[in-house]
């Protein structure tokens, strides 16, 4: 008599299991489907105009005068790349040094003091960074180096600071995940602390460090509010670090409020370009980190 009863209970459990698995699948898929919806929507709204005017004039055109039906995105593409590269040039060396100090050289007390502060940095709204830029950094650059102050340089510095928490916290995690035995082994071989960092910890934590840079890059490319406030927003190719610049994100945010018709479509096309750039950057970064991981 016990046999069939048990089988019945088993079936019920199995059915529950299937249901739960299905529910989880739906939830997981809904996250993916959001991405899908965004992609379809942006591409659907943005690509027709690109076909109408031609990809070349859209991507390589250097004039952006929506009222005269000139939709050249090249200045904004260059602007985004410049500002992102500048942010990485400032944020990555600082961030990595800070991560090394925190994991390898700082005492527990110093670490306990600095780490929460850095994490707090991530919680500051970007408009506050922009405000600080406008009030302090921009006048400083204007006075010291000349030019309008609202510039590639200002945006790079502020974005460089903004990506610090991302770069630092992920690199710190990566460095701390290196087994302590690597450290001991290296030090027992007569390596100094710095040689250990350079020759053992960095290679061991490489994939995590690259991930931290990718995520920092993503943040810099995508940041909008702070760049609008301090980059100057002139839709021209910047001739120097002190020239004003407009990024792709700024372009959308500045004009979406009043754009209609083809202008509006052109802004969606800007979104498409932004989307593609981020995808390409991520793919390149992922590919290099994967290739390096495969090598000895």
């Amino acid at each position, binding site marked *: 008599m016990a046999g069939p009863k048990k089988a019945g209970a088993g079936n019920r459990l199995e059915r529950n299991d299937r249901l739960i698995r299905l529910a989880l699948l739906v939830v997981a898929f809904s996250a993916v489907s959001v991405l899908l919806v965004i992609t379809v929507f942006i591409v659907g709204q943005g690509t027709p105009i690109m076909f109408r005017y031609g990809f070349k004039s859209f991507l390589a055109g250097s004039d952006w005068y929506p009222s005269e039906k000139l939709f050249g995105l090249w200045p904004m593409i260059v602007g985004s790349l410049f500002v992102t590269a500048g942010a990485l040039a400032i944020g990555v060396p600082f961030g990595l040094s800070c991560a090394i100090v925190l994991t390898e050289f700082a005492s527990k007390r110093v670490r306990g003091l600095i780490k929460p502060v850095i994490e707090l940095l991530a919680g500051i709204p970007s408009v506050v960074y922009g405000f600080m830029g406008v009030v302090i950094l921009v006048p400083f650059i204007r006075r010291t180096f000349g030019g309008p102050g609202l510039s590639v340089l200002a945006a790079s510095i502020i974005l460089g600071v903004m990506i610090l928490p991302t770069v630092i916290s992920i690199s710190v995690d990566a460095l701390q995940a290196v*087994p302590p*035995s*690597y450290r*001991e*082994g*290296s*030090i*027992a*071989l*007569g*390596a*100094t602390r710095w*040689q250990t960092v350079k*020759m*053992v910890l960095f*290679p*061991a934590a490489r994939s995590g460090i690259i991930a931290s840079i990718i995520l920092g890059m993503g943040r810099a490319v995508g940041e909008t509010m702070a760049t609008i406030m301090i980059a100057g927003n002139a839709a021209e190719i910047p001739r120097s670090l002190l020239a004003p610049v407009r990024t792709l994100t700024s372009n959308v945010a500045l004009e979406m409020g009043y754009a209609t018709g083809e202008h509006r479509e052109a802004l969606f096309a800007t979104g498409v370009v932004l989307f593609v750039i981020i995808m390409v950057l991520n793919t390149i970064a992922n590919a290099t980190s994967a290739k390096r991981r495969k090598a*000895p």
Partner: protein
Amino acid sequence: MSDIAIEIRGFSQYFGQVRKINGLDLDVRRHEILGIIGPARSGKSTFLCALNRLNDLVRGSRHEGAIVVEGRDIYAPDVDVVELRRRLGMVFATPVPLPRSIYENVAFGARRAGVRRRDELDAIVRDSLEKGGLWEEVLDRLESSGQKLSGGQQQRLCLARILAVKPEFILLDEPTSGLDPISTMKIEESLRRLKKDYTIILVTNNTKQAARVADRTAFFLNGGLVEVGPTAKIFTAPDDRRTDDYLRGRFG
């Protein structure tokens, strides 16, 4: 020149309030394999880490007494710790190849010491791997990752890595505790060969291993030395009853 390479005099090691080694007196002779046996927590590993000052890395580490290596107190203020650790190479219980190629694992120490020329490095890597008894098995795949080797090969790689920095002493902390008997045998063979050029201190939980390879054996208990003597004597006619009890498995 006496044949004493290391003198330990009244040495105690503390971590915070905990005393791990208590007033140790011991001599290590040149070109011998000194086996150190004793139950867990008897201070064997702490003793090894005192010799190359790896204990310094532990917070709250403090010592009393002296350790004199080749006539110099290693805790004297003018001692170059990095240089000291190069002279006393250490192999750990768990082999930890660095996440790099076999070649780079061995070349690591030599590069650190400033060797740059490729042919010199090649020679050092080959020589060290031969002494470590691994060359034959890896000569055609020096560029593959050191972490892909088997456990026994990894341990011999770690031994070779130590030899590449030309130490005077080799400290081994239970080097075969995770290995199969054949790998263990290969390591022991390497040690016997290395004895004529190096002074070796071998901490082991496997008393039979001490019996097989050590010239002299020291028995540690509760952070102190119970007795030290020629291996044959320790294993057949120890002076102290506790040594006899441990070897017969009556405690520990």
